[in-house]
């Protein structure tokens, strides 16, 4: 890709991927997976020199990207068995969900930035009671001895040290795939007559699930199984098209 984006070295792989994608700007609708993989690998090169652990996180995402690229180039040849196939689909859906989640947080963090800028333009009075009123403030250290100081110091320094040495185990990501989210959604939509877009929120128990359900809803729409109508008040109502039998057949196909 011909553009250069200055990337924050503290960004994770998903953040970097998002920046690369957004850097493509208007081309987002004709994004080249090959270019994306190339750019992403270049970013890994930069980070490999910094930190092996960071590079590893990047390589995991790169693996998924490369797999996607291979399938695009050679759609018919798949060397994977069924289980691996399924695992790949899950990885891909998860990558997409995480990208959309990252995009959500990035957009809202821009608002945070603006609010913080405004907040920093207003000054608070930090003086508090100041020296002239210090006689009003009770002394929190009236009974302190020199030995207490040494103890407090050692405690403070100890608290700093092990924290930075501890190993953080990464907790597993939600294992739900978009496919599963779609099934759950459809089930829910069929059971109730009066559905709105809010169903995405109601079902989700975490933010990433919001994204997964959202994608599930999108798929249902693309498969022609639901209709979405926005009212004047802004609420989006969801209608299921056809009956249960038709729908389950459609899904099986």
């Amino acid at each position, binding site marked *: 890709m011909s553009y250069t984006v200055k990337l*924050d070295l*503290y*960004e*994770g*792989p*998903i*953040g970097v991927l998002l920046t690369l*994608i957004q850097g493509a700007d208007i081309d*987002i609708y004709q*994004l080249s*997976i090959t270019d*994306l993989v190339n750019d992403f690998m270049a970013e890994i090169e930069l980070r490999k020199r910094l930190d092996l*652990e*960071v590079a590893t*996180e990047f390589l995991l995402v790169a693996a998924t990207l490369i797999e996607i690229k291979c399938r*695009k*180039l050679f*759609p018919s040849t798949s060397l994977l068995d069924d289980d691996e196939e399924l695992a790949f689909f899950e990885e891909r859906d998860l*990558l*997409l969900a*995480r*990208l*959309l*989640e*990252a*995009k*959500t*947080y*990035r*957009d*809202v*963090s821009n*608002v*945070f930035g603006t*609010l*913080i*800028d*405004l*907040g920093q*333009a*207003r*000054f*608070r*009075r930090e003086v*508090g*009671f*100041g020296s002239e*009123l210090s006689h009003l403030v009770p002394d929190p250290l009236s009974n302190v001895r020199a030995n207490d100081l040494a103890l407090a110091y050692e405690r403070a320094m100890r608290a700093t040290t092990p924290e*930075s040495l501890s190993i*953080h*185990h*990464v*907790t597993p*990501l939600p294992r739900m795939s978009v496919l599963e989210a779609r099934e759950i959604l459809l089930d829910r939509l069929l059971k109730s007559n009066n559905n709105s877009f809010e169903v995405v*929120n109601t079902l989700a128990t975490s*933010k990433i699930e*919001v*994204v997964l359900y*959202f994608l599930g809803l*999108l798929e249902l729409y693309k498969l022609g199984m639901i209709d979405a109508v926005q009212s004047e008040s802004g609420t989006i109502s969801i209608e299921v098209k056809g009956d249960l039998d038709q729908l389950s057949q459609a899904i099986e196909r």
Partner: protein
Amino acid sequence: MTNAPLRGAIEALLFVSTDPITIDDLVTYLDASKDEVEVELDEISKSLTSQERGIELLKIAGGFRLYTKAEYEPYLRRLAEDASNSRLSGAALETLAIVAYQQPISRSRVATIRGVNSDAVMRLLSVKGYIAPLGKERGPNSAQLFGTTKYFLEVMGLNSLEDLPRLIEFAPPIEMAEALENTLRDEA
């Protein structure tokens, strides 16, 4: 009927306090009724809207606090001790957003969402006073959980966490999701 000394006392308290003061606090310190305090706060707030006044009264982080009006920033910046208005990086802002919306949240969970170890960024946010440890998760492998602070609310100009922008409104548009999905699909 106005109660001049009460208003003066409220102003004096607001002037020296380094935290937002709640109405309940004022009631306790001043032996006044809640109604009286509310009336005087309202009067103070109104009188500060005048163009001649350089400060304003904001309801923030659950209490009231005086701030200089934002328009005077250029003059105050010259006086301020740390003249550098250091801005948070994109990564730090994103991490802050994740903590704000998902609190209480552990460091490892933040790392999972960002896909990268975020300890340094979390520590920066902590030192800056935006986030703080809240306590531990329950269970054997209990991790420290983090949340945003009162100072965070103050800097953001929010009265409570409920005033945060609604996250759902920032979900990417359908077209973008579709475009991305197409890129990642295997059909060429």
